[in-house]
């Protein structure tokens, strides 16, 4: 919806027109009198004066007592005259943009307004506009007289700025705007600073090792205290000078805490400098407290020179250690401190070198901006550390979970291992017993049988079979039942002697990964026994010259070129039923084909 910019301008035209017309037609403006020429007299009486004309001296506003009446304070009287064509009927007002410290106003001898208490603790109106409404008929056609009774203090920029008298409705907007600027804004600043320093203080309570947060909360507290001077009119218990001393000391403390904060923020350790500055910040205000009151304000001004130096030092330090922080952090901090410092120099210049104009102090602008900036940075840091903490926590959790999983796993593994160890130990013992006992006896029985006459050959063969079967059992127990290849390899060694006796040549082929459908120690043993039996049969009966053995992933085949046998007649003999039964038990298929040119036994699974 791109609208023509001219259309926008046209839409504003009626308002602009009305405004213009208003300015032209307003005769109210013409009625407003700006008063800056009058007469003045110092007198401690608090009723409108009736002294002879000779005591009055002419005065031009702004009138800064520091310049016009150095080292004089107390009650002063101003008198202004102005003429009106006619007596107004509506509500009128006196609008005093600036006066210090307190005043009351008389119009044509009638009290129309007062700034509050004139005895300690006095009301403070130094930093705010004053506005007193009164009924228009109090003024009459011709000459009118305004008398203003001002309470001021020596050497504190007391005095009066030019002011206006006119219809209430005309003057009020200007007063409201100024009131907003000079009272509402500091109130908001005060609230914000106090709130931030409270939040950071709470954070500090939770994280005591992070002194940054405490430093900030002190800074915020001191600057809030200083800002209070702009909107608090009535200060209980404290005299004017005590209150002034307190607020200016708060400024000093604020800058001191700011130094500590910045040192910690950019991670610089300079305890000696901090100590010297602490002494300056405590001893300085203390000494000033002992001085006569006219020296209080300027005394703080002189002390402030030291703080100007410190502010330059802070800026330099931030620049010097800019790499300790993120660039965005550094520059935000640098410029907000620079701004704050400039407002400070502005105020200091006014304090040290009085102008005729009653000054407007703006340091709280700087401290508010700086407070918000630093609070923002600290909250960002806090957020970052929270995120970091959460990430760490998450990592830690997953690490713990991982570790406990590994632990559970290794515990289980250990249990399995222990069980296997127990089984293994038991097996080892049985093997040792077999080896040293039964095995040894079998071997010596066999050796002895070898030496016997040939008619005892069957005994020898039986003994050998017993030994071979024992070996098969041990082989199957020994190794990994899934590693059929090695089992077959070991079996070949046993078959070697059988082949030697039958004089057949063995052709051996073992493929890469033969594996039974249900590999287990007993199944492997069964298969070995089958193979052993097949070979025994070949050696005994076939008269073969070549035997072909092959085993693969899903088959085992033994083929010979012997004389073969008649399947029908030999079915019951040669242990064939035995072979079939074993094959069935193993869940594998046995096929036997035999002819005069040889026999093939094929096992598939």
């Amino acid at each position, binding site marked *: 919806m791109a609208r023509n910019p001219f259309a926008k301008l046209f839409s504003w035209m009626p308002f602009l027109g009305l405004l213009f017309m208003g300015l032209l037609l307003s005769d109210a403006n013409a009625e407003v009198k700006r008063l800056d020429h009058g007469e003045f007299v110092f007198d401690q009486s608090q009723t409108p004066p009736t002294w002879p004309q000779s005591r009055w001296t002419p005065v031009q506003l702004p009138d800064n007592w520091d310049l016009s009446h150095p080292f004089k304070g107390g009650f002063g009287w101003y008198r202004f005259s102005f003429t009106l064509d006619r007596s107004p009927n509506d509500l009128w007002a006196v609008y005093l943009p600036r006066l210090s410290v307190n005043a009351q106003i008389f119009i044509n001898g009638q009290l129309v307004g007062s700034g509050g208490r004139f005895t300690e603790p006095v009301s403070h109106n130094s930093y705010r506009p004053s506005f007193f409404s009164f009924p228009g008929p109090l003024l009459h056609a011709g000459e009118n007289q305004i008398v203003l009774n001002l309470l001021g203090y020596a050497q504190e920029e007391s005095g009066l700025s030019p002011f206006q008298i006119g219809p209430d409705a005309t003057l009020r907007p200007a007063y409201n705007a100024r009131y907003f600027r000079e009272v509402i804004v500091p109130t908001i600043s005060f609230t914000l600073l106090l709130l931030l320093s409270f939040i950071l203080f709470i954070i500090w309570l939770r994280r005591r090792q992070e002194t940054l947060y405490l430093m900030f909360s002190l800074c915020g507290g001191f600057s809030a205290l200083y800002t209070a001077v702009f909107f608090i009119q009535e200060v209980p218990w404290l005299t004017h000078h005590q209150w002034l001393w307190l607020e200016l000391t708060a400024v000093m403390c604020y800058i001191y805490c700011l130094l500590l904060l910045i040192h910690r923020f950019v991670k610089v350790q300079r305890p000696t400098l901090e100590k010297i500055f602490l002494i300056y910040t405590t001893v300085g205000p203390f000494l000033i407290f002992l001085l006569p009151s006219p020296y209080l304000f300027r005394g703080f001004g002189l002390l402030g020179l030291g703080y100007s130096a410190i502010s330059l030092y802070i800026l330099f330090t931030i620049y010097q250690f800019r790499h300790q922080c993120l660039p965005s952090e550094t520059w935000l901090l640098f410029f907000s401190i620079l701004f704050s410092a400039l407002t400070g120099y502005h105020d200091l210049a006014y304090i040290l070198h009085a102008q005729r104009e009653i000054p407007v102090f703006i340091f709280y602008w700087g401290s508010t901006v700086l407070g918000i900036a630093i609070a923002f940075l600290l909250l960002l840091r806090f957020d970052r550390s929270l995120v970091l903490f959460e990430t760490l926590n998450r990592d830690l959790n997953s690490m713990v979970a991982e570790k406990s999983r590994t632990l559970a796993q290794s515990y289980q593994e250990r249990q399995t291992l222990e069980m296997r160890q127990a089984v293994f130990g038991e097996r*080892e013992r049985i*093997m*040792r017993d*077999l*080896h*040293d006992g039964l*095995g*040894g006896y*079998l*071997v*010596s029985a*066999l*050796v*002895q049988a*070898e030496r016997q006459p040939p008619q005892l050959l069957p005994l020898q063969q039986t003994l*050998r079979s017993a*030994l071979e079967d*024992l*070996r098969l059992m*041990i*082989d199957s127990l*020994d*190794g990994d039942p899934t*590693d059929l*290849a*090695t089992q*077959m*390899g*070991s*079996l*070949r*060694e046993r078959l070697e*002697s059988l082949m*030697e006796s039958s004089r057949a040549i063995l052709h*051996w082929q*073992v493929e890469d990964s033969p594996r039974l459908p249900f590999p287990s120690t007993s199944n492997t043993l069964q298969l070995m026994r089958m193979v052993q039996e097949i070979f025994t049969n070949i050696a005994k009966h076939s008269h073969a010259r070549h035997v072909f053995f092959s085993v693969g992933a899903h088959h085992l085949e033994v083929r010979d070129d012997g004389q073969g046998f008649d399947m029908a007649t030999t079915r019951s003999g040669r242990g064939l039923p035995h072979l079939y039964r074993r094959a069935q038990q193993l869940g594998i298929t046995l096929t036997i084909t035999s002819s005069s040119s040889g026999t093939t036994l094929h096992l598939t699974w």
Partner: protein
Amino acid sequence: MIPPTQRNSVLIVEDEPITRERLVEAISAHPLLQVIAATGSLRAGQEAFLAHPPRVALIDLGLPDGSGLDLIRQIHNSQSPTESLVLTVFGDEQHVVNALKAGARGYLLKDSSFTTIADNLLMLIDGGSPINPKVARFLLSQFGEWEKSTPTTPQVALTEREKDILNLITKGYKRNEIASLLNISNNTVGTHIRRIYEKLSVHSNIEATQEAVQLGLIKNRR
């Protein structure tokens, strides 16, 4: 007839007298072999070895006064060129692997035929190592463990060809079959196997040294 001094000396340590006698018979029957001592106990075996270190020692493990493994270890760590074979009834893993770790070069079944006994001994003497599926499998797993645990120098790791040969032996293939399967000569297969054994002995020495360092017998200089 070859003079006794020219024959290769064999020591037999076996406690079962009948088995021992048969071994003596089988070895003595061969013209190139000679039994210089046949004893029935560990102590007698050790004494016989120290008195006349033989070319080959056949050692049973379960001896009445101790384990034959001690003698195998003693022989392996001595300076003599003696090589030992473990005598076993079953050729079971427990016996074979322990003996190989102690330093034996292989095993011999107690009831082997005379020819097998003589062939094995002569092959060992010739520098070719008798090898069979179980030994091959042991070697493969042992080298595998070493490779995993210590990233040793490649010179003492098995080459692919050596692994191929061991794998084929595991499956029961004979030397000549391996030669034709891999298109190499019988001798080359023998050479490979000998080299594997050399690496094994290097490893065993490294292991022994490491153990000694761990036990504090040798100061670790690094």
